[in-house]
């Protein structure tokens, strides 16, 4: 579904991604793990069109989308839930969700989806009229995911959705990820909760200083000594 080939992204003259190639087959959850500063966010932003790669290609559903602006990429069915959530804090919860459906032409179906999303996330229904900025961190993350779902994406990019959340909420988010995937949406997940990310995904890429250091089926990588030592805190 998504193919990234030899992508290099720079900040000024400093390379942040070097020769990155990944595949996200339709229907799967694919995980990307890596230390702080490895380039995970840079990769997600490059796929979503926020950053332009200096070289390499990104293709989605067989068509090249390299260098397209983000507002065109979301129209093709790729939605990014950015790191730090990026809630519109001066707009209400409902308005945030409406903005999630901004690209949709089928207004009636979007309204139905709004109801469905509110059913799935009762907190958001309760707080529909409240400003986005007044929500707690966990609620904001729910809103960010719900907002991305409002665009009815084929591929959902999640950049550290559990960052800074309490363990119970983290478990909640992983349950939601499974649910979204079971409902037919492909997911590319960046996570620092390595173990859970590998459990929910079929394939994992390990990013180190802008390069893919390791990759493989998640259940196999879980047994890999290097992974155990560096990412799972086991000797």
């Amino acid at each position, binding site marked *: 579904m998504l193919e990234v080939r030899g992508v290099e992204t720079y900040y*000024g003259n400093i390379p942040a991604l070097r020769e990155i190639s990944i595949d996200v087959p339709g229907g799967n959850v694919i995980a990307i793990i890596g230390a702080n500063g490895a380039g995970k966010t840079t990769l997600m932003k490059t796929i*979503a*069109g*926020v950053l332009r790669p200096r070289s390499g290609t990104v293709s989605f559903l067989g068509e090249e989308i390299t260098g397209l*602006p*983000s*507002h065109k990429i*979301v*129209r093709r069915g790729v*939605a*990014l839930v*950015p790191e*730090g959530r*990026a809630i*519109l*804090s*001066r*707009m209400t919860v409902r*308005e945030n969700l*409406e*903005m*999630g459906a*901004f*690209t949709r032409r089928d207004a009636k179906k979007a309204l139905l989806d709004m109801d469905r999303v509110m059913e799935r996330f009762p907190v958001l229904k309760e707080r529909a009229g409240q400003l986005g900025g007044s929500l707690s961190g966990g609620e904001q993350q729910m809103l960010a995911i719900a*907002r991305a779902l409002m*665009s009815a994406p084929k591929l959902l990019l999640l950049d550290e959705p559990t960052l800074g959340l309490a363990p119970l909420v983290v478990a909640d988010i992983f349950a939601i990820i499974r649910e979204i995937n079971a409902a037919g949406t492909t997911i590319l997940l960046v996570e620092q909760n390595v173990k859970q990310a590998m459990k929910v995904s079929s394939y994992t890429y390990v990013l180190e200083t802008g390069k893919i250091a390791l990759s493989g089926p998640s259940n196999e990588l879980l047994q890999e000594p290097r992974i155990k030592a560096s990412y799972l805190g086991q000797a």
Partner: protein
Amino acid sequence: MFLDQLINGITLGGIYAIVALGYTLVFGVLDIINMAHGEIFMFGAFAGMLIVSKAGAPLPVAFLGAIAVTAAMGLLLERFALRPLRGRPGASHLASLISTIGVSILLENVAHKLFGAGNHLFETPFAEISFTVGPVTIYLVQLLILLISLLLMAGLALWLSRTRAGKALRATAENLETAGLLGVDTNRMITATVVIASAMGGVAGVLVGMAFNYINNQIGLSMGLKGLAIIIFGGMGSVYGAMAGGLILGLSETFVVAYGSSGYRDAIAFVAIIVILLVKPRGLFGQAPAEARR
């Protein structure tokens, strides 16, 4: 006497609010003060003057003409003075600010060349028509100014809060990157904002002509400074702050002139800024800066 002054003050305040809205909308999406807005406003006034006084056409035509001229100026300003600087690595907001200062100097000189330095009569056919209700005398012109500025403000507020495009504008103003990720073509949104803001300046230009009956090539500067004062006072980027600030300034100026001395009139705006900034540093309706603004 008091009621008369109240009406005068609200009328003036309505015009100020429309001018200030032009600044605040652009500030919202671009984080810069459009220093050329006062001059664009002035061209709106001149366009209206030419249509009403020189061509003798009716007032609605003057509004349409002023809107057309200033909207086109906004489009050119965004396309040639702002967009080339946007998103360039190393180009700070200061670059766009200075760019608008350049445009304002250019426009001032063009206006001087075209219209000279003197006053131009802005004739409204019904300038003398007034109604007397009890102790109060209201001029039809005042009523019209009031009506137009209120409609414009209400329309803008509704558009921003209810429509898809208005919400997209607010999203763009809060966070450019997020708006883009949600599917908003932020470049188009910014262009639209500068065009709308400029057209509002054009409307304000005609309103000033109607209110004072004459215009000259200095009104851009003086009105521009007041608009700036209002948005600092009301809170940068705040739509309601611009409306409230405009009305407050209009009323206080009118009352100071009526009950105090006209010499202090132009000082009020700046005294008000100093006071409000001491008490509320972000302005009356100021918002904390949104996180992760580009």
